[in-house]
């Protein structure tokens, strides 16, 4: 044990206010319905406890806001006097239930009941910096330091009990936060009696937050009891009864409302504005402008909306068009000089193999820009009180936002904190980043708390976009129908791909003229599969549009940044090759994987075989080549499969479609997903995450496309930018969770990531099913009714 150092002030306050805390336990004891009332208690949060799911910690002391010390056990785990515990973790839960899963993992290691704990996430001065969310790696990576610190807390408590009883640790038992002597179970001591409301004062080791560890080992999988159960998500009751305070709900005394005014034409220069056009409006406070950034601030929200629409602004359009139209995009990309060009990766001799092939297939695929188009447009509230800056935000990377805003405003890091609160749909680099910077900038200018809220058209037009892709594929089959050569050539419109929270990546900063010396390179990814193809050439290039700054077509991460695009092309083309070989699509894939003997540490090749087989079995796959003979009915039915992996997680998905040949309408009636992410923490939570992730990609397959003319984005609301609806919902979704391949000699796998992996195969599975039903191959996303109908008509279907 060492001397206590920097533990978050919030935790200090909790340790100092024992009397306030016991009220929560009393509430629990007197309550009939423990589960619901526990959630309510954590929400009510009378003492600032469990603020992650409660009201914003406005009572917290004014800064500075130093970083919690990641090497202090007290920064992670607090045992309260009522024998409950609070866990502090530096992640954010975007709605997939990771908070509940973290709690399960930490409860198991600490040996405490799930219902006797709470978990606080993602607020920069309260929880250790684990970076917030991203990459679907919360469970895979960040769960480990959480498990280790909880195990360390248990170890320390056991040592304390050992000393108290005069009995060696290996002769003690522990269950539900009570330690007993094995030989005399009447001798017990609770965690609270050992350390309740006091500090551990234990220093941890590790060079970075992912390596944080105590002395204790984590438990073997066989000893985990709460992991693998499906306790309900603690955040759901306050989300359905209206009691949760979200980032959109925070209201502060003296708070004012802001709205942005975006350039009429992308890349336009702000020549001036006539403030007198809004002076007379009630509640008007100020127009704030710097460079091409422009916003109005008013006392009331509806006043700010009105003023933003009435302000007379003089924009000067750029000399050259910022981008081609969305209809011309793919021709433009194919003709563009790449901004970066990876050396082709070559295996074998693809030229010779293609020259010798019995059949050579070629196909081009196109995938549009798609947006986050968050259901709740970007928002944030910034409070400049006391010379500090607090930003209330749902941005999933709250820690990066804090650093970026400090730099942007030239403030000391410790003057700035970001309070993470729940918000809409944070699936990557959303405009929540931008709104946080804007609110903070305006708050500093105005000197009052400023709430920034983007409007619908602004969100849909200007949020960051997943990059558009074009693909050219060429494959050669030998006389036996075996795939002997594959050329894959991908181009991504991803030049200057923005990162998270760095000053030059946010729109307000770009509008003010900030430029990186070298634009971010961007990336065009390659397929993720285990197909054994002896001759391959894989080429990836990035291309840029004419405008890469201040543009609504800024690219950033969108729920598996390249996966749906790449897998659409690669798994559609494999299906085309299977059809050309007159082979069943499942058999064709399994033969390609079986042809390899390369295995990695995570058995991904064997697990690929397992998920494809499991999905086919569960679906009741009838082995035959696609397409099936064209029927004469109005509704044509078919099924398609696609498979991929992401990091260590392997997924196969089967879609069954109905295609209306008279309208072109596609309904995905049934989906089967076989999913292997290793050890599953919360099966029912995972099931829903898988379902929703697949439907998100289904929306991208059927509906979503950013459309633009040569000046601006023209898809700006839910009519011009349609999204999946209730009427599109499949009738049946089957999710099969698999851990490891069927080889019984192989061990259970550790916990990997989930979420984005299932987003990858869906678009291809749908395209393959449409082909099976109609004999028509769709090579451009999305598959909207009019496009499908045109393709059917062109093919004479």
């Amino acid at each position, binding site marked *: 044990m060492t001397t206590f150092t920097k533990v978050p002030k919030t935790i200090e306050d909790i340790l100092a206010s024992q009397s306030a805390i016991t009220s929560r336990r009393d509430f629990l004891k007197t309550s009939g319905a423990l589960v619901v009332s526990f959630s309510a208690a954590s929400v009510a949060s009378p003492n600032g406890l469990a603020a992650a799911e409660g009201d914003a910690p406005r009572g917290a002391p004014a800064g500075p806001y130093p970083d919690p010390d990641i090497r202090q056990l007290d920064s992670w785990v607090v045992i309260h006097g009522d024998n409950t515990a609070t866990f502090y973790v530096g992640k954010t839960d975007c709605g997939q239930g990771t908070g509940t899963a973290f709690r399960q993992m930490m409860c198991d290691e600490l040996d405490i009941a799930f219902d006797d704990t709470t978990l606080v996430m993602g607020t920069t001065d309260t929880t250790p910096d684990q970076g917030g969310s991203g990459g679907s790696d919360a469970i895979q990576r960040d769960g480990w330091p959480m498990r280790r610190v909880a195990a360390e807390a248990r170890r320390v408590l056991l040592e304390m009990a050992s000393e108290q009883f005069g009995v060696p640790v290996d002769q003690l038992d522990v269950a539900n936060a009570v330690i007993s002597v094995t030989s005399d179970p009447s001798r017990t001591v609770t965690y609270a009696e050992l350390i309740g409301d006091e500090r551990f004062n234990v220093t941890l080791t590790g060079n970075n937050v992912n390596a944080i560890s105590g002395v204790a080992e984590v438990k073997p999988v066989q000893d985990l009891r709460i992991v693998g159960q499906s306790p309900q998500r603690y955040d759901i009751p306050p*989300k359905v009864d209206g009691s949760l305070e979200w980032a959109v709900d925070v209201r502060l005394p003296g708070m004012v409302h802001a709205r942005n005014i975006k350039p009429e034409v992308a890349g336009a220069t702000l020549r001036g504005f006539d403030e007198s056009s809004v002076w007379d409006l009630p509640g008007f406070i100020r127009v704030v402008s710097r460079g091409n950034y422009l916003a109005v601030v008013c006392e009331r929200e509806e006043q700010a909306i009105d003023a933003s629409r009435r302000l007379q602004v003089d924009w000067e359009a750029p000399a050259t068009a910022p981008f081609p139209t969305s209809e011309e995009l793919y021709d433009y990309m194919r003709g563009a000089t790449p901004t970066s060009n990876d050396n082709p990766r070559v295996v074998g001799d693809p030229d010779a193999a293609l020259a010798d092939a019995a059949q050579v297939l070629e196909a081009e695929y196109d995938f549009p820009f798609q947006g986050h188009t968050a259901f709740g447009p970007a928002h944030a509230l910034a409070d400049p009180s006391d010379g500090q800056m607090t930003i209330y935000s749902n941005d999933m990377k709250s820690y990066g936002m804090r650093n970026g805003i400090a730099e942007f405003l030239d403030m000391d890091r410790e003057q700035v904190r970001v309070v993470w609160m729940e918000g809409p749909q944070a699936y990557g680099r959303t405009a929540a980043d931008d709104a946080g910077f804007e609110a903070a900038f305006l708050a500093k200018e105005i000197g009052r708390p400023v709430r920034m809220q983007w409007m619908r058209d602004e969100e849909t037009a200007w949020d960051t976009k997943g990059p558009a892709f074009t693909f050219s594929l060429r494959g050669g089959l030998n006389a036996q129908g075996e795939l002997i050569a594959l050329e894959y050539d991908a181009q991504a419109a991803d030049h200057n791909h923005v990162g998270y929270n760095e000053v030059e990546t946010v729109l307000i900063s770009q509008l003010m003229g900030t430029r990186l010396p070298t634009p971010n390179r961007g990336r065009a990814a390659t397929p993720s599969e285990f197909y054994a193809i002896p001759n391959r050439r894989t080429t990836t290039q990035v291309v840029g549009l004419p405008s890469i700054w201040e543009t609504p077509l800024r690219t950033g991460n969108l729920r598996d940044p390249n996966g749906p695009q790449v897998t659409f092309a690669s798994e559609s083309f494999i299906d085309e090759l299977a059809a050309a070989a007159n082979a069943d699509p499942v058999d064709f894939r399994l033969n390609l994987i079986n042809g390899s003997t390369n295995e990695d540490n995570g058995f991904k090749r064997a697990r690929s075989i397992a998920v494809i087989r499991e999905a086919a079995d569960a679906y009741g796959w009838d082995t035959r080549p696609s397409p099936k003979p064209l029927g004469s009915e109005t509704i044509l039915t078919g099924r398609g499969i696609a498979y991929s992996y992401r990091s260590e997680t392997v997924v196969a998905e089967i879609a069954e479609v109905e295609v209306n040949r008279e309208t072109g309408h596609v309904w995905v009636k049934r989906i089967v997903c076989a999913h292997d992410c290793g050890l599953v923490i919360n099966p029912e939570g995972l099931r829903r995450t898988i379902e929703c992730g697949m439907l998100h990609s289904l929306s991208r397959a059927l509906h979503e496309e950013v459309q633009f003319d040569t000046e601006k984005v023209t898809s700006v609301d839910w009519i011009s930018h349609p999204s999946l609806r209730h009427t599109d919902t499949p009738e049946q979704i089957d999710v099969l969770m698999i851990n490891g391949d069927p080889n019984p000699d192989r061990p259970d796998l550790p916990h990997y990531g989930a979420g984005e992996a299932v987003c990858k195969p869906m678009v291809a599975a749908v395209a393959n099913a449409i082909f099976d039903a109609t004999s028509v191959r769709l090579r451009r996303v999305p598959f909207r009714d009019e496009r499908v109908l045109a393709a059917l008509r062109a093919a004479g279907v």
Partner: protein
Amino acid sequence: MSLVNLRVNGTEHTVDVDPSTRLLYVLRNDLGLRGPRFGCGLGQCGACTVIIDGVATRSCVTPTSRATGEITTLEGLAQNGTLDPLQQAWIDEQVPQCGFCQNGQIMTAKALLDSNPNPTDAEIREGMAGALCRCMTYYRVQAAIKRVAAGAQDDGPASGEEAIR
């Protein structure tokens, strides 16, 4: 600005606003309600849905002066501390992902079931079509509605897996 009377969740309120102000902003900013929320401001997504005299209404396009009936928001569904069966079904079915749209889902479903207690699957899909969700929780929303519509006939999970708790 002028004084406008509103009856919300059984309580009378008088607010001093421009009467053309959309009801959403008054509910949120003057009355401090958190259920209805801004999603599009165009009446397209359902995030702002409240029930006025039994009708699911988009508060983001409704002038405050026109909201003369009894307004019910998400906060007003629970009675005497007991959640509405729909809210309980939402918990039992573990419907939300991020949850931001769920006000629109629940309030639209409430109005749907109040007018049609036993909808067919097709009626549920059509009746809910205007309530968007970008996390795509539709499958579970429909399962939760079926739990309530089915009433006591079937308390099991609509989608076939084992009960969660």
